């Protein structure tokens, strides 16, 4: 890829547990249209995220116009997804989809402060599509890999966003390593279940 071409930013892979901790947002220029980044505690800036999880609940929480909230669960926690009139495709998807369903979401991280001063982190989706188990499992492995890579690079010299994360958050990285381990182990368990089911099916086939 040519260096000079304006390049699109990567969609970060981050588990819900870490994503919801990313309460600090910033811009890198004074331009009004400059992209807004959320600072991931493992030391990366995220202007866009890609996530896959189970859509467990959808609700129209809008007052004057439709404003849809979806809860998307991954092995570590819950993403909150909000789509209104400016995200018509995503709002449409939240309105139409039956829960539970595996969904893949491309979106922008958003953080807002509530009246009591806590910061809530959510996703403003660009697209929401229904996907299958294989895609969801692939995402879990990929997200674990990217998370572990960020943690590995955290102490490297010149890791600007890691230094910034140290300043802004006082969060032990161990937690995110453990979340990645738990997420991967949850896949193994699920695979084990599938395996025994297959074995039973075969048993039935043989007896017939």
């Amino acid at each position: 890829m040519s260096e000079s071409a304006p390049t699109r930013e990567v969609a970060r892979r981050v588990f819900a547990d870490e994503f919801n901790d990313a309460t600090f947002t910033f811009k890198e220029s004074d331009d009004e249209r400059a992209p807004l980044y959320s600072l991931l505690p493992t030391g990366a800036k995220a202007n866009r995220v890609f996530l896959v999880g189970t859509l467990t609940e959808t609700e129209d929480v809008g007052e004057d116009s439709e404003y849809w909230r979806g809860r998307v669960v991954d092995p570590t926690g819950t993403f909150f997804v909000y789509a209104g009139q400016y995200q018509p495709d995503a709002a449409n998807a939240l309105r139409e989809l039956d829960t539970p369903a595996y969904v893949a979401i491309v979106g922008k991280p958003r953080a807002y402060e509530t009246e009591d001063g806590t910061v809530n982190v959510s996703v403003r989706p660009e697209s929401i599509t229904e996907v299958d188990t294989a895609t969801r499992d692939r995402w879990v492995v990929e997200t674990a890999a990217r998370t572990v890579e960020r943690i590995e690079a955290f102490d490297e010299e010149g890791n600007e966003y890691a230094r910034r994360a140290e300043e802004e958050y006082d969060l032990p990285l161990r937690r995110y390593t453990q979340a990645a381990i738990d997420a991967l182990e949850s896949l193994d368990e699920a695979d084990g279940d599938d395996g025994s089911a297959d074995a039973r099916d075969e048993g039935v086939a043989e007896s017939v």
Partner: protein
Amino acid sequence: MSDIQQTAEQLHDQFSEHLDVDVKEIKERLERYVDEYKIPLDEARRSVESHYLDEAGIERDELGRGGNPTVQAADVDAPDEWVDITAKVVDLWDPRSDSVAQVGLLGDESGTIKFTKWAASDLDELDEGKVYHLGNVVTDEYQGRYSVKLNRTTTITEVDEDIEVGDDETTVEGALVDIQSGSGLIKRCPEEDCTRVLQNGRCSEHGEVEGEFDLRIKGVLDDGTEVHEIILNEEATTELTGVTLEEAKQQAMDALDTTVVADEMRETLLGKYYRVSGPTLGRYVLANDIDELNDPVDGESVLIKARSM
């Protein structure tokens, strides 16, 4: 063949369209400089060239110049350069217009490059699979993609050897995170050698035109570390979506809206993982092959690494 004979033949080729002069006469002129006046051959060549330029009443620029750099297909990186290239005709395409005699793909060890041969240049036919030395072709660029144009001063010499055409294919993987505007059912400019995609019925070069329908996907593959832009042509798009150009036109007709085609594609394709292989053009990977990655993944190595941290 003597150097003088060879130079005389080259000069003859250069001037054959402008002057009625035979190789023998040119050779004699060269020999006078070289043998009688002891002038180096390249200097003699220049003098003889000047003489015939005067005689033909043309400028040096209008001539095919000798001494072009010889380039490799993948090394062409600037437009409007006069170069020589030895390459194999890998593929011949159907010319979209009468002004083009032949259009296709040339390949050498380094990779491939598109070529265009104008009908007005009146050159010999190139055969697919044969290797040619092409003298005096001009490089061109369109949207980051380079090509060479054969013109009336181009010399075509068949070379009796085979070239193993280099593989400039690349393979990328990732989640399809975006299907960009300009995807789905599109219209292209029908003007000669244009094919630009129309915006609201207008070509950026030719203005308002009656477009020709085409089907394609411009997408973004993202693996969380890198972003790759991919383009699927009609064939690859149909292979992936199962929707043919005719069906896409029907969908658009039923909805009275061409955007439904891309919307449908977004709904079925986004958020899934794909592996795409094909040549790179500028910042795009042209998808010759696209496969969904839906086989089970093994998280064991990541797990071992995470546990060791």
